[in-house]
């Protein structure tokens, strides 16, 4: 039983990481109906820049407690990823807003490759170890183990979701976002500055990406230039699972996918007599993705919308 609870906790933590990243995908998709392939790379950039900033800071004799040092690193990486997000939208997506849908998707792949390769140029291909700065004391929970950092990640995913929901529902920018996502041309007639709203979406999404990247790095103790791809893909799956464009759906989808993966990797082997097992862990995400898209393209919490051409 404690093993099962541990698997649930594992799934919850991984799922929260997916959820944090999925929020970024879902925000952009909700407004532009565009898969921002490069979001996984923004997550990677956030982690890598934070590591570099922290190592420079601690190397130059700044003596701060661990968590503050991480915050200082984030203060460096968040503006940079925000700028990256802004630039990506401006350069690669905005000129193609009226183009066939294939076009921005291809530039998105291009941006993703470019960011990844630039990261390889800067940091080389080897993994960087993430300094041990955040508290990670273990707690016992019904025979299973959970650390402070893991609790932080789960809480953070929920808090960020709550914050975004409040922003979308209550603020002026949020109202503008909703308007743009419903109908761009009408929104613009109503005096909404569409370009500003879209840019802000990318900026906020990228900042969240950086935070998510740091959480990934801290939790696993390392970061590397190619880390963004797989985790980005899974987060995207989570967003689709929950109903893309829906903030609460992204979190629900993330948690569900995390638990499917953990429990699947843990129990599928014994159930199928070793035919399927943990070696198919990565397949679960893709299978879920395909099944959801085929049978319920609107996801768990999404509304059924007419297909846009």
């Amino acid at each position, binding site marked *: 039983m404690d093993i099962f609870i541990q698997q649930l906790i*594992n799934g919850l933590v*991984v799922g929260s990481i997916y959820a944090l990243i999925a929020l970024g995908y879902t925000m952009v998709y909700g407004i532009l109906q565009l898969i921002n392939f490069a979001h996984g790379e923004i997550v990677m950039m956030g982690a890598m820049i934070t590591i570099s900033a922290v190592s420079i800071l601690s190397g130059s004799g700044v003596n701060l407690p661990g968590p503050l040092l991480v915050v200082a690193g984030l203060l460096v990486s968040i503006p940079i990823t925000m700028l990256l997000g802004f630039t990506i939208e401006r350069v690669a997506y905005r000129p193609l807003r009226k183009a066939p849908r294939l076009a921005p998707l291809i530039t998105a792949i291009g941006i993703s490759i470019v960011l990844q390769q630039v990261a390889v140029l800067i940091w080389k291909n080897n993994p960087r170890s993430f300094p041990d700065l955040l508290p990670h004391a273990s707690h016992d929970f019904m025979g299973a183990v959970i650390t402070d950092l893991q609790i932080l990640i789960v809480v953070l995913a929920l808090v960020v979701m709550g914050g975004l929901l409040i922003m979308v529902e209550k603020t002026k920018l949020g109202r503008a976002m909703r308007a743009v996502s419903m109908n761009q041309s009408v929104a613009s007639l109503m005096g909404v500055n569409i370009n500003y709203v879209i840019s802000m979406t990318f900026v906020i999404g990228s900042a969240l990406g950086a935070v998510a990247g740091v959480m990934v790095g801290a939790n*696993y103790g390392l970061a590397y230039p190619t880390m963004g791809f797989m985790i980005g893909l899974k987060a995207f799956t989570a967003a689709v699972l929950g109903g893309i464009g829906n903030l609460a759906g992204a979190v629900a989808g993330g948690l569900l996918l995390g638990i499917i993966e953990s429990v699947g990797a843990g129990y599928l082997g014994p159930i199928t007599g070793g035919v399927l097992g943990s070696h198919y862990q990565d397949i679960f995400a893709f299978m879920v993705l395909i099944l959801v898209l085929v049978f319920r393209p609107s996801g768990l919490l999404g509304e059924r919308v007419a297909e846009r051409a």
Partner: protein
Amino acid sequence: MTLARYSLIATAVLALAACGKQEEAPAPDAAGAPAAAAPAGDEVIKIGHAAPLTGNIAHLGKDNENGVRLAIEELNAEGVEIGGKKVKFEMISEDDQADPKTATTVAQRFVDAKVAGVIGHLNSGTTIPSSKLYSDAGIPQISPSATNPQYTLQGFKTAYRVIANDVAQGGALGEFAATNLKAKKVAIIDDRTAYGQGLADEFEKAAKAKGVEVVGREFTTNQATDFMAILTTIKGKKPDVIFYGGMDAQAGPLTQQLKKLGIAAKVIGGDGFQTGEYIKLAGDNAEGQFASQPGMPKDKMPGFADFDKKYKAKFNTDIQIYAPFTYDATRLMVEAMKRAGSADPAKYLPELAKTDYQGVTGPIKFDEKGDIVGGQVTVYQVKAGKWEAVATVGSPAAAPAAAAAPAEQPKQ
């Protein structure tokens, strides 16, 4: 557009391309010139070297290259006579990028350049596909570091290696786990790469043969960072030792997560994570874990101290891993040429098979497959943040070391 018009355009393009090619042509000819101009001076014998000189493990590739370079420069300084004629050696080094497709292109380049022999490649994944080209061309190949058993199982007469293969390494690790660590139950994880899976399979065989129970076999990938799910499964099976077949980038976080879950079992693995990088990535959790490296520990290699001095003097850098092996490989290849009185691959290949060479890395003899006879494997342990040799397994000469190790063990 019509087929006919495509042809017209394509013809023009090709004609242009062909002209361009002709202009470029003199370059390779110039490169081949020393060989053609040989009668004037000494005869030049070309030896190919292939390893990844760019990318992730470029430092290892460069190290291999340095080993060959050192051997060749020494040989040239010593003045070697083959079949009564004075000869000079020349190294042609190529970058295979650790990529199978590039490796076969590189192999073709060597065949074109009519090299007398090849030292390489570094990875098993490049060595195996390229070995076919060398075999077809009859060019002897000695790999300093490819440990996949398949390499010498293909029946190629040209394929040799001077390092213990994964059968030996996995077997040694299995034996070490059973006798030295006195493991009763082991769990095995591999990263689903040719290297990780091959090593894990050999370990499993050896451990089972020693009566150790394999309580779990789990899998991950060489891109993974989250191992909590599989480690939780393993935790439930309470193994004494967890074997990981894979590289340091995964072994590091895996070791951390193991501790997080409160698993007390020791981690053991192959040369994939017997690196400084592993200690960095696993942090304090690396302490007390085991990993092996084929060959004797460097300080026990008969000629290492001398070689190390020469190497540092020449290249002003530390030896990574395989330089002594490429050095030995080059020298023993030339020895075979000397004995045969010819650098013609067809003539010296039979002599290469009969090699009995006392190298920097120890005695080298080949069995009928081309594997080194009695290749040794050393098991290291992280002590105070550094890898330290604790046992050498595999060869009769090293038996005392292996026997001595258990006595040391309880102290840790």
